[in-house]
């Protein structure tokens, strides 16, 4: 019989090493996972709180809003309103997993299997992460960002930097490229680029240019609307990118700050699109690894029961009328779907053969799953792999709430023959960021007139922007643009529903 990895709840660093080795063996040999090198770090509760407030990253630039989140988390943690996560994992190479020191040995095994192998494999192989993130460069880039912000604060004053960052943060969710560009993101080159540009500016600086009389500028009115929009790269939905490139009066360092915020937003973009898949993958992986270790006799029955207890809590899905309900639990849905795929691949029923002819009865569970993990995101994953059996299991139903409808909220479809496809389509749509985020883009700039920036919000299903927030965000936008900004909400028929116009606040005289 194989040696036990540990007994009881205590662990030390040698135990962690043994656990990691055992998990790695199962992950690589039995499951065929492909992971970044692992780095496992043990931290305290206080450090976990620190990590919470800087979006889980080990280093980040300084900003008051992180302090606010820290104060909030700390207060609720102290009062016992909130438990802390068992781990945090970072999409970087090497892949860093933070483990809480107070976890028991079983929990450490669970989180190592979950984070260091499950998430790690997903980060390395999913197409979105490959396309949008640069795991090797992210930590260096964050380091660069931190230092850059610090330098800016020294040179241009903390208030100025804070003002720019506040504005950039407000626009962060609209600082993302949604369509892959020509080249892959290379964060390591970013730092060099910023340095080179600064150097170039210093080299070519010549005060004489200031004295050269400017020639007559070409008549702007000659530019056709089409040509103008093309020159500015419009329409543009990446607001931060547009400001970085085209805002008329930003200083170079402000553009660089916008760029930093934009890059970081982009780095997190895949995570928001793959919550269900990412957690599903990790949960499935830890479940397989733990079961395997138990079967090999390396974990005692008692410890395995402890694991099953936490596992069940994690994948608990309250029903809609339950007090605890707050939407679909990505762990529950993801894990159930992964297990369901395993079932379809190994023990299909007639219904599954009809719905999933490609994978039903294929018998190569890990092959199918690895392919799914690599090539889908939440929306397409649910849209293709949610089976009728699972919809029946969760007893899913679709509600349509039209405020105009007097009779109330309509039940549009339920888990029956007529409803399967509609329920599935709707659930997939709920996980589509294209539907969740407001669709706002820059459509035009009035170059010949008052340089007003014009944005459109394409309203879907009558859901308009929250007024207070919209005004505040637009205020930030106007401050960066330094001229008026107009946001027009239009519906699908181009009918104007609402118009906001915001003027920039005067910049305090202290700007140097």
């Amino acid at each position, binding site marked *: 019989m194989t040696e036990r990895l540990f007994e009881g709840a205590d662990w030390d660093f040698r135990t962690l090493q043994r656990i990691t080795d055992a998990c790695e063996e199962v992950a690589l040999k039995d499951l065929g996972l492909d992971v970044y090198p692992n780095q496992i770090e043990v931290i305290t509760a206080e450090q976990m709180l620190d990590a919470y407030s*800087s979006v889980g990253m080990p280093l980040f630039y300084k900003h*008051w809003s992180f302090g606010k989140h820290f104060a909030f988390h700390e207060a609720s943690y102290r009062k016992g309103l909130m438990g802390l996560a068992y781990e945090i994992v970072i999409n970087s190479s090497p892949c860093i997993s933070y483990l809480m020191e107070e976890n028991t040995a079983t929990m450490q095994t669970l989180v190592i299997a979950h984070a260091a192998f499950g998430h790690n494999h997903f980060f390395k192989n999913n197409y979105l992460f490959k396309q949008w993130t640069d795991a090797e460069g992210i930590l260096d880039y964050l380091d660069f960002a931190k230092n850059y912000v610090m330098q800016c604060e020294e040179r241009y004053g903390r208030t100025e930097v804070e003002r720019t960052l506040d504005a950039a943060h407000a626009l962060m*969710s609209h600082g993302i490229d949604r369509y892959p560009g020509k080249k892959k993101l290379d964060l390591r080159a970013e730092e060099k680029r910023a340095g080179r540009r600064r150097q170039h500016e210093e080299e070519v600086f010549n005060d004489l240019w200031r004295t050269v009389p400017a020639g007559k500028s070409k008549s702007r009115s000659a530019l056709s609307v089409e040509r103008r929009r093309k020159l500015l790269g419009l329409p543009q939905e990446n607001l931060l990118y547009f400001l970085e490139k085209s805002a008329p009066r930003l200083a170079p360092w402000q553009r660089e700050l916008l760029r930093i915020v934009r890059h970081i937003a982009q780095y997190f973009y895949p995570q928001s699109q793959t919550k269900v898949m990412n957690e599903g993958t990790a949960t499935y992986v830890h479940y397989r690894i733990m079961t395997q270790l138990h079967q090999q006799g390396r974990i005692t029955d008692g410890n395995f029961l402890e694991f099953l207890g936490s596992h069940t809590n994690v994948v608990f899905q309250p029903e809609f009328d339950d007090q605890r309900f707050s939407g679909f639990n990505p762990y529950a849905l993801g894990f159930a779907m992964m297990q369901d795929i395993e079932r379809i691949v190994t023990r299909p029923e007639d219904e599954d053969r009809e719905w999933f002819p490609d994978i039903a009865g294929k018998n190569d569970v890990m092959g199918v799953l690895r392919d799914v993990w690599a090539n889908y995101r939440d929306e397409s994953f649910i849209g293709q792999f949610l089976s009728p059996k699972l919809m029946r299991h969760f007893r899913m139903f679709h509600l349509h709430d039209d405020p105009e409808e007097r009779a109330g909220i309509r039940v549009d*479809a*339920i888990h029956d023959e007529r409803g399967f496809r509609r329920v599935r389509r709707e659930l997939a749509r709920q996980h589509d960021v294209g539907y969740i985020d407001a669709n706002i883009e820059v459509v035009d700039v009035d170059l010949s007139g008052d340089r007003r920036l014009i944005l459109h919000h394409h309203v879907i299903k009558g859901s308009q922007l929250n007024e207070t927030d919209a005004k505040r965000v637009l205020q930030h936008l106007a401050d960066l643009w330094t001229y008026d900004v107009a946001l027009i909400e239009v519906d699908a028929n181009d009918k104007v529903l609402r118009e906001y116009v915001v003027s920039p606040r005067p910049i305090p005289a202290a700007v140097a």
Partner: protein
Amino acid sequence: MAIHIIDRRLNPGGKSLENRQRFLRRAKSLVQGAVKKTSQDRDIKDVLEGGEVTIPLDGMHEPRFRREGGTRDMVLPGNKKFIEGDYLQRSGQGSAKDSGPGEGDSEDAFRFVLSRDEFVDLFLDDLELPDLAKRKIAQTESEGIQRAGYTTSGSPANISVSRTVKLALARRIALKRPRKEEIEELEAAIAACTDEDERTELIARLEALKAKSKRIPFIDPLDIRYRRFEMVPKPVAQAVMFCLMDVSGSMSEHMKDLAKRFYMLLYVFLKRRYKHVEIVFIRHTDRAEEVDEQTFFYGPASGGTLVSSALQAMHEIVRERFNPSDWNIYAAQASDGDNSYSDGELTGLLLTDKILPVCQFFAYLEVGESGGSAFDLSDSSLWTLYERLRNSGAPLSMRKVSERSEIFPVFHDLFQRRDTAQEKAAP
């Protein structure tokens, strides 16, 4: 594949401290308001423990474009009885979910915990002793000596033995100098050894050890550290605060409580904000005595009332210990305002002739019964006297307090920083 396991627990904590301070700085006016509000209904001791404050969200809000309203579609789990085409009644308002920190439109307050230091700092932030700078600048500063760490050179008298031995020990361990026990052990082994070969080997090892312990000295000149001293300018002009409290029989428990609270606050304020403030506690009935802090705040006493006795005592202490040309002198007096009629004249004289000329600032706090109805009647004898003095130009500050909750505002009022006070007066 190499797996790194790293223990980060010993890394310096407080990574978020800087961010937290930025947040507090940004929210300062809000937090300060909240601190003052919370402190009103708390005990002074509790105030100094820090604690939770609540600030309104406005201004701390991080806006985002958020959509709301419109037609909503949702897929939910747990269907029990619905079939397609059913209609569900809307239950009044759609139940909005709680939002995270600072999100959402709600006017919800943002709660968080301040540490003790943060709390007291904010609480006392806009207070100062009036006119403290005046004499400080006028006076020359003398140099004082202060300990300032260790140095590698200095006079033998200043050798820090403990530090030197500590370093030597570290060096000996690092260079693996053989310990005395090891050598003794080896010698014993040699003595007990019978086998010739082994013996020679042991002797060789012993020689090696001995040579090594000679090479690596017990104490090396490198290890020696001297205590370092630094000259620091010491302001000659210092401040002394006289706390005069009436503990006579006419003071009810409530009044004493108010006065004590006031002094407690004053005490904390002075201790915290000024390094060189001396505090003298004088309590009086019909005679005055200088007491220590503990007796002043907690010792029981009662008797008749002669305010002049306290002023006389203060005058004597000033003459003995605090030369007015070297010291900024402040005084705060608390009383219920009762004074024996015959004493009024003497009190007035003492105050105008002896006390006020040497004082930078004299505050008088009159405590009354809860409800404050007493104030609607005629002013007390002491109040009338002081008011007359003030009207004739004496630098007196006077306030009345009858409720616990008034202590903090009055205190703030008395010690408000002058420039801010002026700003408020002339906006």
